[in-house]
């Protein structure tokens, strides 16, 4: 198991946002999180790279282990952890820098490459994110000049550049048209050879298409978790069935 979560509770100040979550995610698989808006998908995703640390008053109980090492143990360095667990955000957030500098950023700050090697790794990351052909002639243009879908793929390239082991994606295609969405889905399919991927999505078909396992959340609880095909053909829980057949949510 790549990621093991046991009895996780999460609080925003006094408000409890996640209750007793236990789940295991396998290496080189895609795990999808589904559930109605506000059920805690993003919150849970962000506990996996300790991104919630920066929210004042946020508190975690229970354990989250990656390769057996507890993320919330006192010896764990959140900064080092985030190098291993990359993240792509719901709303694409390229830096106000050039396309090249966006991808080079993580490599630079982590001292992973410079000069020719840096340029090569930027190119490789952009190719891995299926963006290279569209931007190779304008690497020094502002990232903000790219289209929404291109910006999202740039953020994926930026995350891939530092070669994480786990890639967390929070609704990476929510703001994209069907073609751009399809490109991202194809990308996820290719990337899972090298990465453990966790993806939040509102789109049932997308979850069914890209994921190996699916977790259904509802009001801060993990209602059901299992292999994607059986989740979509024969869910065990009534709530899951109602949600995936569109009766609520």
């Amino acid at each position, binding site marked *: 198991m790549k990621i093991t979560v046991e009895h996780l509770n999460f609080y925003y100040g006094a408000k409890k946002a996640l209750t007793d979550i236990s789940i295991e995610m396998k290496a080189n698989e895609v795990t999808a999180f589904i559930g109605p808006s506000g059920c805690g998908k993003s919150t849970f995703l962000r506990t996996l*790279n300790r*991104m919630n640390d*920066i929210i*004042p008053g946020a508190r975690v109980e229970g354990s989250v282990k990656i390769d057996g090492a507890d993320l919330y143990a006192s010896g764990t360095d959140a*900064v*080092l952890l*985030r*190098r291993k667990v*990359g*993240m792509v*955000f719901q*709303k694409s*957030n*390229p*830096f*106000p*820098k*050039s396309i090249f500098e966006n991808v080079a*950023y*993580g490599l630079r*700050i*982590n001292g992973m490459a410079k000069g020719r090697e840096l340029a090569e790794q930027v190119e490789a990351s952009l190719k891995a994110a299926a963006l290279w052909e569209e931007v190779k002639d304008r690497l020094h243009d*502002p*990232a*903000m*000049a*790219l289209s929404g879908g291109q910006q999202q793929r740039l*953020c994926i390239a*930026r*995350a891939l550049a*530092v070669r994480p082991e786990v890639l967390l994606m929070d609704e990476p295609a929510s703001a994209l048209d069907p073609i751009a969405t399809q490109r991202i889905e194809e990308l996820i399919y290719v990337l899972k050879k090298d990465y453990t991927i966790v993806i939040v999505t509102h789109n049932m078909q997308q979850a069914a298409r890209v994921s190996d396992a699916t977790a259904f959340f509802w009001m801060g609880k993990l209602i059901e978790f299992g292999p994607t095909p059986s989740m979509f053909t024969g869910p065990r829980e009534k709530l899951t069935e109602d949600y995936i057949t569109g009766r609520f949510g």
Partner: protein
Amino acid sequence: MTFRDWRRRALSSVMIGLSMAAVLAALIPVALILFFVLAKGIGSINWAFFTHMPAPVGEVGGGMANAILGSLTMVGLGALIAVPLGVIAGIYLSEFHGSTFASVVRFSADTLNGVPSIVIGVFVYAIFVLPVKHFSALAGGAALGVMMLPVITRTTEELLRLVPMALREGAYALGATRSRAMFTVVLPAALPGILTGIILALARTAGETAPLLFTSLNNQFWSTSLNKPMASLTVQVYTYATSPSEDWHRQAWAGALVLVMIVLVCSLAARFATRRLERMHTGH
């Protein structure tokens, strides 16, 4: 067209008219000042004005070379103190904006910003001039620095806090530490605005007379010593404008024009320098 539609359009036109009137009202003083300074000053601007010293009393001609150099020197000195201090303080305020100490610093900066410039002049006079018993460019620069400091601090803080949290998170997600994220993503993102704020602060203080009357005073001679009194455009303009001499009046207008031009050129230079950064924000 129904009455509702008609009313909506009429209201819209009235509002547009009102805002245009407000813009005009705000522009009129600026336009008048520029027009007057230009009209009155341009006739006395010549090469000698920039290269010559003030003419002795009773003689016609001469220039303000020493005052121009003095103003630039003292604004530069002030900036040397206030820009690094102000930017660093602003970073602190934005990073720790909830802390008690930050509230105290913020309140102090706002208070300092409201202190009349003449009071700052007297204050610097008491601590920089009285102990050594002579006026100096250094004291003048310090007074201007004290004036710039709160503006730069608060502008930096406000602009840093406008940078979306999402950018910061993007940097964290790639393994950036808090300070790394600050200096490599947040600060560069806010830099065009911060630079504009700094230039405005410099421009505003370049036009100050009161704090210099007590600190650098004036100097009829060419002096580059920071430890001696130093001429400045504002004090020189003040002296000439309040004198009875017609020729000095003309020189005062020319001095005012040079002051306005310096401010204008600096603002344009700042615009130009931040264009590349701004392009990264807007994408074109």
